């Protein structure tokens, strides 16, 4: 792989970078060893602290947490996507009194913390915390989906729309039958990457007392005793990260094996994963 910054290294540069690698590995290993030593001093590695994972109850609680996390995320995604499509169509409408209010609403939804929306729904509508979590996720992610799809439509070659209009489709028909399907295919990597953000934001449910994975950890630590907080937290966090990594990989896989049905191919997944990055 050639880099922008340096040439393919020669023998001398290879030796230097090998020495650098060795020093780097030693430094990182020392850092890890220090962290493990510190943890060991706290008695983290005592077998009895990890023995709780031999109990079925502990796993039942963890899996309840995971299923609460995943079900909130899945329901929110299923509602947010069609809503995002609708908001996108309204945002690019030819009619000013549809377009402009939609734009203001989208700016508003994108500019607010998700957890604030969850708290708002929870307190103002006095709903269950599950509905508050789903509503917060739907409102925010529908706005982001709308902006992603809009970016997809704008990135299509102009001829797509022109051809649609030329064969007598109305503006709306062209959007719906020609541009939108291509835009969704084109932005599939970004849409899947946004799912990771949605999944991560489910953990905000902890703050509005929804019984997701992190809440399950807290409950278990309260129940079993504080000395078990770290082991339970460690396992739960590892599961969470593994799920997210799998979905991220999926986005990258789709990007590589992109559909040929979209004019201009498949767009890159946003590298920074920050949901607001929509050009």
């Amino acid at each position, binding site marked *: 792989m050639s880099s922008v910054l340096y040439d393919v290294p020669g023998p001398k540069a290879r030796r230097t*970078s090998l020495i650098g690698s060795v020093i780097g590995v030693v430094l990182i290993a020392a850092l890890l060893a220090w962290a493990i030593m*510190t943890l060991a001093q706290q008695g983290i590695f005592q077998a009895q602290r990890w023995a709780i994972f031999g109990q079925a109850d502990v796993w039942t609680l963890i899996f309840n947490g995971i299923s609460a996390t995943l079900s909130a995320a899945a329901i929110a995604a299923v509602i947010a996507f069609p809503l995002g499509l609708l908001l996108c169509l309204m945002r690019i409408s030819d009619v000013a009194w549809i377009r402009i209010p939609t734009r203001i609403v989208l700016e508003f939804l994108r500019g607010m*913390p998700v*957890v604030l929306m969850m708290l708002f729904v929870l*307190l103002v509508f006095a709903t269950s915390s599950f509905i508050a979590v789903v509503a917060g996720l739907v409102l925010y992610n529908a706005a982001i989906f709308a902006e992603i799809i809009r970016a997809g439509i704008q990135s299509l070659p102009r001829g797509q729309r022109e051809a649609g209009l030329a064969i007598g489709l109305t503006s709306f028909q062209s959007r719906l039958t020609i541009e939108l399907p291509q835009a969704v295919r084109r932005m599939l990597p970004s849409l899947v990457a946004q799912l990771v953000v949605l999944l991560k934001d489910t953990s905000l449910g902890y703050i509005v007392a929804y019984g997701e994975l992190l809440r399950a950890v807290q409950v278990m630590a309260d129940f079993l005793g504080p000395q078990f907080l*770290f082991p339970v937290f460690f396992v739960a966090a590892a599961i969470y990260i593994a799920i997210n990594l799998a979905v991220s990989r999926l986005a990258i896989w789709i990007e590589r094996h992109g559909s040929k049905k979209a004019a201009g191919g498949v767009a890159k997944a946003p590298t920074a994963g920050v949901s607001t990055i929509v050009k």
Partner: protein
Amino acid sequence: MDVIIESLPQYWDGFLRTLFLAAVSGIIALVVGTLLAAARVSPVAALRGFSMAYVEVVRNTPLTIAFFFAAVVLPRLGVTFQQFEIAAIIALSAYTSAFIAEAVRSGVNSVPVGQAEAARSIGMQFGQVLSLIILPQALRTVIPPMINILIALVKNSSVAGAFYVLELFGYGKQLANDHGDAVMWVLVGVAFFYLLITVPLGYLAHQVERKVAIAR
């Protein structure tokens, strides 16, 4: 609506604390993120691997988990904080630095290889290539995503409010408790103060993007 005017002092204090959290974490994240990006593009394999592992893991970790770790798990491990702000700054800057690193790296990679090759072929040193050819081009593509990361940081700082830090969201929760009859207006007020930061920043990102856009 009276409750908003009544609570202006709290709002203002929370607003300043939110700005403070975001500014301090932002600066730390910029420095750490740039170092991580430098490690990621360096010729030393070990540094590349470390940086990649860090970015991949942190990017896929929910911020709430990072906060939980800093504010709840770390004190159990013997690391106690005088103020929870410090735990919040650690969580926010550790989280944000991974995104900064990705943005900087993609900026450097967006410069065509030919640019550096041409510079080297006319005899420029590494430092000259970097400072005169690569960085000026990389920065133009990087600034808009950077601003977007900072916007996300401001919004993310709200999680601190749930972990004992009295910033905008923290005050919002407290005020909502105190004014059970006007919860809606209390939270609308909080939203307004967040929008006061995020909307202008978003507009700035958009403007910068249009201004520095280069046809490649």
